[in-house]
């Protein structure tokens, strides 16, 4: 016979449990993982036997997982089939783990299971904490989320075909042998039975072994957690180990905390989250180490330690755990308050800028269009290469349609420093520039045009100078120049002109023609988006073309963010009211892909995007999404300056 005691609940323990739940939930919402590595040890510190702590933790987790899984399924972040298959085998792993735990309990008593759970905790936290720390260092040096790449191991696993065991999974978008899936599920369950956090194995295994993107893996883990948690609650419940009061008190605090933590993540960078995660994991690990001598002595595996010393060690361990929790809580709350304050400030600045712009619409401030939606002074920048062919065609066409003045700019590129020492250098460069613009000048016959040759040590500088000097409303140029060819998708010169020109820039791919079917504008609700929308609206109205207003949301965006995207599109639609048919679209995916797909669907052959301000030095000021759209589009893209 063995006594299974639940902890006694009085005002103090109830308060502590809710508080622990709150902090655990906050940490868990922030770093996106169970938080059980905080909750299980905390419950044990309050006096719950390991088996009750694990069981009660599982019981509070599975309904939460169900709520989370349903929510994320809506965003397409869950592979239910894979989740259920893994969940069922995790259940078996859990049975095995529980069997092991009961065996240890029978053989060594409560101290034995406590030691077992603590050792697994330490091992897992050390490994996972180390990985997270590595990720943090990697992420800190990248200025944006790294794109998903199928790891080499996953590619190998996907390539193996074992007849009779192959199953198709949506998350992998292919077939994989069950013989690889089963051990992952089993190990997840085995771990969960000991520490109530199976996700530590499940999520990395899905990412690194099956090649599933992180977001999908963590969403699918919720299905596993639900299947496993429900089964686990039954199994432990049948043993009489689930204290539902304990579970629900933890849940009470946890649900408040988890949402606060999740909101907190939207105010910080990815690598900061990873750092908090690693620090908390390693601190919890450190706290568990203090209990080990007591357990070992209790089991007679080492020389007996005086009870007073064991108690001191336990107090030390509890204190370290408390520090870990408080540290986590402070970090999240600081991130939240600081983030909110900064955000409010930025919002106010944005509103101020918007109202200033509304009060005094400076000429050229809104994409350099005249109110009738016409460009009056067009500057074509060409280097005479095949990459400028599209730009030449479109600029001439645009000038004809707008009855605009066309400036055909060629840049004589040479370094004045050498010009003095190399006779004829300047003349040769000027001659080359004239040859470059000759073809464009011929095709512009019949429209009001002027050839402009500027001298500069860099093409982009020459173009920007010409745009300034001739007060161009828009610069039309190719995507790549001769110099850009071997560089990036968007040529260096093009990127720099967009960054530094005083007006909007129309970037034309090689084979593109002037727009005549429809205009698409990408908006994100910012003032850059507003400027783009204003220009797009005027352009579409002047040409009598339909306008599509598109905003993209990422799968990771919450409902709030999605609502804002819808509002942004609606606001633009209402605000424009330009008498041209306008449709609003909010779609999910990588922004550039969403915009290109929607342009294709809407039959739009002009994409309008906003770019960041005029100051700054590098192509960064153009905005990475705008750059990718410009780089990938097969129709002209108008980059509008705010």
């Amino acid at each position, binding site marked *: 016979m063995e006594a299974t005691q639940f902890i006694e609940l009085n005002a103090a323990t109830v308060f502590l449990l809710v508080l622990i739940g709150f902090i655990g939930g906050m940490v868990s919402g922030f770093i996106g993982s169970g938080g059980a590595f905080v909750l299980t040890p905390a419950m044990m510190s309050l006096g719950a036997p390991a088996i009750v702590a694990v069981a009660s933790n599982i019981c509070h987790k599975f309904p939460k997982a169900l709520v989370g899984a349903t929510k994320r399924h809506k965003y397409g972040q869950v592979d239910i089939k894979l989740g259920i298959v893994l969940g069922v085998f995790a259940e078996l792993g859990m049975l095995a783990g529980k069997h092991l735990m009961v065996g240890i309990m029978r053989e060594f008593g409560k101290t034995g299971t406590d030691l077992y759970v603590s050792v697994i905790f330490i091992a897992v936290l050390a490994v996972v904490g180390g990985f997270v720390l590595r990720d943090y260092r990697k992420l800190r040096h990248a200025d944006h989320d790294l794109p998903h790449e199928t790891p080499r191991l996953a590619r190998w696993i996907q390539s193996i075909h074992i007849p009779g065991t192959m199953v198709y999974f949506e998350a992998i978008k292919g077939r994989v042998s069950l013989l690889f899936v089963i051990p992952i599920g089993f190990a997840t369950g085995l771990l969960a039975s000991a520490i109530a956090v199976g996700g530590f194995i499940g999520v990395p295994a899905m990412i690194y072994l099956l090649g599933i993107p992180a977001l999908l893996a963590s969403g699918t883990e919720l299905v596993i957690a639900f299947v496993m948690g429900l089964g686990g609650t039954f199994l432990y419940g049948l043993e009489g180990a*689930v204290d539902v009061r304990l579970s629900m008190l933890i849940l009470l605090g946890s649900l408040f905390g988890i949402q606060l933590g999740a*909101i907190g993540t939207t105010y910080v960078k990815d690598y900061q989250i990873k750092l908090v995660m690693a620090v908390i994991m390693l601190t919890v690990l450190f706290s568990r180490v203090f209990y080990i001598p007591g357990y070992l002595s209790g089991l007679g595996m080492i020389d007996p330690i005086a009870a007073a010393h064991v108690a001191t060690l336990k107090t030390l361990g509890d204190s370290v755990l408390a520090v870990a929790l408080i540290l986590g809580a402070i970090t999240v709350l600081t991130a939240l308050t600081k983030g909110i304050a900064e955000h409010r400030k930025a919002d106010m600045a944005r509103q101020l800028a918007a109202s200033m712009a509304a009060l005094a619409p400076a000429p050229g401030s809104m994409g350099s269009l005249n109110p009738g939606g016409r460009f009056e002074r067009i500057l074509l920048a060409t280097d005479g290469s095949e990459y400028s062919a599209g730009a030449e065609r479109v600029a001439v066409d645009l000038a004809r349609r707008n009855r605009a003045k066309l400036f055909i700019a060629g840049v004589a590129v040479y370094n004045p420093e050498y010009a003095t020492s190399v006779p004829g250098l300047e003349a040769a460069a000027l001659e080359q520039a004239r040859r470059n613009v000759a073809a464009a000048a011929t095709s512009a016959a019949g429209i009001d045009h002027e050839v402009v040759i500027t001298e500069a040590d860099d093409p982009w500088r020459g173009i920007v100078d010409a745009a300034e000097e001739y007060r161009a409303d828009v610069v039309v140029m190719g995507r790549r120049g001769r110099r850009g060819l071997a560089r990036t998708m968007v040529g260096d010169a093009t990127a720099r002109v967009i960054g530094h020109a005083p007006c909007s820039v129309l970037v034309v791919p090689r084979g593109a023609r002037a727009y005549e079917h429809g205009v698409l504008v990408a908006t994100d609700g910012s003032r850059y988006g507003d400027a783009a929308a204003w220009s797009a609206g005027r352009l579409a109205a002047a040409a009598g073309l339909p306008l599509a207003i598109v905003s993209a949301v990422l799968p990771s965006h919450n409902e709030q963010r999605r609502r804002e995207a819808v509002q942004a599109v609606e606001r633009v639609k209402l605000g424009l009211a330009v008498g041209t048919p306008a449709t609003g679209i909010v779609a999910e995916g990588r922004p550039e892909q969403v915009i290109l797909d929607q342009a294709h669907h809407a039959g739009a052959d002009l994409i309008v995007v906003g770019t960041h301000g005029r100051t700054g030095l590098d192509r960064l000021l153009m905005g990475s999404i705008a750059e990718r759209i410009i780089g990938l589009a097969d129709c002209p893209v108008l980059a509008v300056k705010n």
Partner: protein
Amino acid sequence: MHLHNARWGKTLFWGTITALLYASLFYYGDLILHMAHTTPPACVVGHGAEAVYFHKPDAAACAAQGGHLEPGVWWHVLIPVLFALAISFAHGAFTGLFWDMMGLKAASHPDRH
């Protein structure tokens, strides 16, 4: 204003349901505890809140402690499961509305699209 009132009403509704669920959990605390402990066969020594439960009971040892044997009732396991599901649902709805009303919401990143 209308919207605001509707949200207040909703928050209050889910808050009340959550509070009722928690109240019943503790009002019937002893019973729930008893049911949890007697899901498997158990030896019960003492009564009410003072009761001590022994699992894998041995008739002779139980009698020696002055307790009585209770056969396990498997469906008692449904109590925590149902409580967990109900509270999670009601409480989840309530906290979401609660933080919303407190003016806490996720950051939007116009620059990130």
